[in-house]
């Protein structure tokens, strides 16, 4: 069977033009998708049934037992941590937040290791952003700062920027100027009109220098700023100032390097400064396909986008204190529920070590690095393949993912809903 307009549940682009051929419960081929999408749809590392660790080995168990034991572990904990959420749909995320409130837990999503600093900067100075459709149809200057879309978001350039013709940009490849700022040459920098090579950790100073030039204080800029010559800084500033519509996209090279959220704040303030002269926007290159959704859900229920601590019964938020990496590094939490994420692969070693030392339960379709740190794993349906649900694209546009076929796996809502019911019953 050939299914059209399939939404890809891999990265924040949420490409919605895939054509997928399926036979029964097997994906045969993927058209229009990038290699990441193809691997996501055709990969086969699914866990067949719930497992629990007994002694040094795994044993097969039932959903009933796994769910009941998970509820007991969470109820017994004094500082449970519910982490992940970015690889599932918003309906499941909603149950997660309510579960955290009921338990007095800390709930955090993968923003904590990606664009959390972007959100902190936005909370300080706002967000002059726009949708990807606006960029596609209007932008004649694109800046990728600390991002390598060709490898991390392979269709971003072909759908929205460099290679995508738009309503007001008839010949994108000729009419759009692309600037790439990074600490090293990448596949993306090779096709840029201007590549700005910054010394590692020097982004803040370069952004400050650009702000000064745009503000008319360029005479103070020294000969070189963090490896970038004065001439190039003026050239970049002039390209931006001569744009009819400019769009800055930034990645983890900016959010997770020295200065963190202050880098993003500086970039937003540069954008605001450019808006005194022309139209400019700035947007994060979100990684997980529904990490933006988790920020939305957390915010609309608790007021905070990630790292929400319910231990006092009300929501408290303080990145650096209530973020998962910090909680795990300080060995604060005494139980952890990981949903639709893989901290075992992404977190520092000390954090993974603490996950292995406490009762950790993972709800995830696949065997991954976190499996080896867990006591229980409950497999579920993959959203966008054998489950459907709502996700948010990197520009905040909600998109409904499709179910391509049915399997016997329950989805995240079913499993989390049962855990919530058991906890609710115990709490009275």
């Amino acid at each position, binding site marked *: 069977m050939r299914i059209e307009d399939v939404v890809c549940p891999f990265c924040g682009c949420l490409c919605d033009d895939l054509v997928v051929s399926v036979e029964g419960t097997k994906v045969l081929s993927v058209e229009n998708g990038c290699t990441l999408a193809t691997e996501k749809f055709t990969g086969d590392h699914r866990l067949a049934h719930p497992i629990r660790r007994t002694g040094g080995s795994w044993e097969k168990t039932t959903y009933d037992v796994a769910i009941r034991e998970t509820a007991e572990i969470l109820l017994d*904990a*004094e*500082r*449970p941590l519910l982490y992940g959420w970015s690889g599932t749909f918003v309906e499941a995320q909603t149950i997660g937040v309510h579960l955290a409130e009921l*338990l*007095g*837990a800390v709930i955090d999503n993968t923003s904590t290791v990606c664009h959390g600093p972007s959100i*902190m900067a936005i*909370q*300080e100075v706002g967000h002059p952003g726009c949708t990807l459709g606006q960029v596609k149809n209007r932008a004649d200057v694109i800046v990728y700062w600390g991002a390598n879309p060709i490898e991390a978001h392979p269709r971003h350039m072909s759908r929205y920027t460099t290679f995508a013709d738009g309503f007001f940009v008839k010949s994108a490849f000729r009419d759009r100027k692309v600037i790439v700022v990074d600490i090293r040459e990448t596949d993306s920098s090779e096709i840029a009109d201007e590549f700005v090579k910054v010394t590692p950790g*020097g982004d*803040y*100073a370069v952004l*400050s*220098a650009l*702000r*000064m030039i745009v*503000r008319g*204080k360029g005479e*103070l*800029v*020294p000969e*070189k*700023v*963090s490896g970038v010559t004065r001439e190039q800084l003026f050239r970049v500033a002039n390209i931006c100032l001569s744009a009819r519509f400019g769009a800055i996209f930034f990645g983890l090279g900016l959010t997770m390097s*020295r*200065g963190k959220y*202050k880098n993003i*704040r*500086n970039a937003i*303030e540069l954008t605001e400064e450019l808006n005194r002269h022309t139209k400019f926007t700035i947007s994060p290159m979100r990684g997980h396909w529904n990490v933006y959704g988790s920020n939305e859900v957390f915010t609309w229920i608790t007021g905070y986008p990630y790292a929400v601590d*319910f*231990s*006092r019964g009300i929501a408290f*938020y*303080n*990145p*650096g*204190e209530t973020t998962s990496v910090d909680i795990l590094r*300080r*060995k*604060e939490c*005494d139980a952890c529920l990981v949903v639709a994420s893989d901290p075992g692969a992404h977190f520092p070693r000390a954090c993974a070590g603490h996950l292995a030392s406490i009762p950790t339960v993972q709800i995830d379709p696949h065997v991954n690095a976190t499996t080896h740190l867990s006591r229980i794993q409950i497999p579920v349906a993959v959203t966008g393949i054998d489950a459907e649900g709502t996700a948010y694209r990197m520009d905040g546009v909600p998109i409904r993912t499709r179910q391509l076929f049915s399997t016997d796996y329950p989805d995240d809502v079913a499993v989390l809903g049962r855990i919530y019911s058991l906890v609710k019953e115990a709490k009275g």
Partner: protein
Amino acid sequence: MRVILKTRPRKKPHVPIEAEGIIPQNFLRKNDLSVYEGNRERHLEDLFFVTVEGPAVSPDQVEVILTGDTGRIKRVGEYMNAGRIIIEGDIGMHCGNFMSAGEIIVRGNADAWLGREMRGGRILCEGNAGDYCGAGYRGEKRGMRGGTVEVMGNAGDFVAEYLSGGEVIVHGDCGDLPGVEMRGGTLVIGGNCSRPCGNMTGGTCMVLGDPGELLPSFRRNGSTEAEFGGKKFRMAVFRGDVANRGKGTLLVREDLKSSRP
């Protein structure tokens, strides 16, 4: 009155305790104080051996002494407005949040957000302080507004972020971006740091050690003489942050202002 709080052994010693109730004025009347251990509400006596010596008729006469494993206790001294707290060892995050008067002495190290949004009084940390010493809460446009925080050791990143008043003195080194977004008050760094005062709009920051790389957005504005620790130094004066139309003052030692980027 002297109140001695000695921590009891805990089954899960890494679970943080939130104890904003530990302020001198709360011990004047024999209130039943509660604290939180993770998501569990506890009586003060469940987590501390409490000893009270002598009388007091006002909070000024109350001295609270914390001993034992105190490094995970958060929010001690929050909204404190009189008296004294002495912490014999380390202290957890947010010590002295919003305090307006009185004194806190930390004999060991203090975790992050020491003196957060402090209005008055004095905090002395004899060891090291963590990140955001004398800063504000997330999204808050004003950090510390009055009083003095003195750290005898080193401090972490983002020290005195959004500093709006009062004085932060760090005798040792600071991490990255001390005085970032500061708009008033005084920050003195006795040791080294990197990228001081990004985006500052007001206030004065003095760096007696190596400031590392200075941001390009500061304009040289002559030189002056300054005194710290009984010594006199020739200081280069910078004004900025120009990128932010700032009118703050950054003083760095004339002989150490090594590296403009």
